[in-house]
């Protein structure tokens, strides 16, 4: 790997100042995406700002009617958190299904959201739950946060500190995993929230997006059958060596049905 300068600030202000002053510097979280990219020289960073000592970006807590997850919380900690399991079991389940155990022990929710891989799992949950991304500068509603392929509303020197996820009445996630990379081919997160039913899918060519037709069908009747037969346009997907666009479009309906079943199971009897 090319040499770089390395800073490990203990305060958010200091981290943001370093990012603002050191040209092309990048935050480092779990490194599960950034380090492979640097090793393969797909990216270069003259300086890395390690966020691991920022206590403000740690911890999982209840914040009113929401679950607040610190940006530096690794996937394994969300999966094992009694609070996450009690408040949003569908989220804990999703976290426990990312990659493999070693990836879950390092990869963080903040890193996943900053990266916004079109196949990443967390963005679907964050968008469907109508979460708020809390940064070093402001609070960004999920609806304004995901901009496109690996693109978000974040400024280069802006640091995600936490994600505030409103506790839904029910929520569930289902995906078809690529058996080799373990990333989802298509995943759908459904949430019955106080702001209505929200549904988001990953795997689209331009990344995560909401599914309005699925939302209105489920608003009428929150049951797997309600989404049967909804047509999903293959245009929004791209074909790759793993799956054709038409197949991915078909998977959206299948995964949406399974996600609703999961949501109902996790909610338990009324």
């Amino acid at each position, binding site marked *: 790997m090319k040499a770089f300068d390395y800073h490990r600030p203990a305060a958010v202000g200091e981290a943001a100042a370093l990012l603002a002053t050191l040209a092309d510097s990048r935050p480092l979280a779990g490194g599960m995406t950034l*380090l492979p990219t640097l090793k393969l020289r797909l990216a270069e960073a003259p300086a890395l700002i390690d966020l691991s000592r920022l206590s403000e970006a740690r911890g999982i807590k209840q914040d009113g009617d929401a679950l607040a997850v610190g940006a530096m919380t690794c996937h394994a900690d969300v999966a094992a958190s009694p609070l996450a399991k009690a408040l949003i079991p569908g989220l804990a389940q999703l976290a426990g299904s990312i990659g493999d155990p070693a990836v879950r*022990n390092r990869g963080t929710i903040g890193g996943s959201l900053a990266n916004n891989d079109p196949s990443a799992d967390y963005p679907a949950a964050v968008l469907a739950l109508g979460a708020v991304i809390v940064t070093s500068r402001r609070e960004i509603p999920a609806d304004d946060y995901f901009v496109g392929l690996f693109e978000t509303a974040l400024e280069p020197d802006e640091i995600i500190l936490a994600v505030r996820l409103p506790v839904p009445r029910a929520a569930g996630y289902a995906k078809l995993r690529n058996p080799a990379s373990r990333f989802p081919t298509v995943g759908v997160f459904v949430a019955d929230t106080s702001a209505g039913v929200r549904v988001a899918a990953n795997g689209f060519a331009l990344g995560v997006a909401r599914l309005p037709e699925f939302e209105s069908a489920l608003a009428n009747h929150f049951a797997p059958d309600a989404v049967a037969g909804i047509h999903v346009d293959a245009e929004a997907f791209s074909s790759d060596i793993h799956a054709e666009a038409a197949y991915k479009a078909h998977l959206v309906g299948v995964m949406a049905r399974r996600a609703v079943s999961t949501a109902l199971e996790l909610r338990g009897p009324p």
Partner: protein
Amino acid sequence: MALSFTLNGKPRQVEAAPSTLVSELLRDHLGLTGTHVGCDTSQCGACVVLLDGRAVKSCTLLAPALDGASVTTIEGLAKGEVLHPMQQAFHLNHGLQCGFCTAGMVMTAVALVADNPSPTEAEVRAGLEGNICRCTGYQNIVASILAGAAAMRSASDVAA
């Protein structure tokens, strides 16, 4: 930069550039070549070590992450000539095959059983998702881990 951490139970101080990967630090600087580098792209798990008890891929970890932490490598499992119960189980169940992925498999297995002392076969298979064997035989590895888990349980009964 100066790093100080616990390595296989003993305090260590080393000087390393921040861009040093933990796999490089262990193998090239500290001579602990039991940790293998298979893919070097975070896929294969041959390089798994324990960082504060958790399985991590050392090829995708910067040396500064060790600062103040405790690291266990495959060299840290045996007590002198006495193999760790998980190592012994791999030996008895022919879990090694060519042996290249074994260190990572054993470290992942030790972390898995520490978390879940009585895993089912399905849980063992799910726990191995990040460890790839290119001899393409997971059967004996899974059998080894189930036997190793049982041995670790009785070892802790004896200790208790």
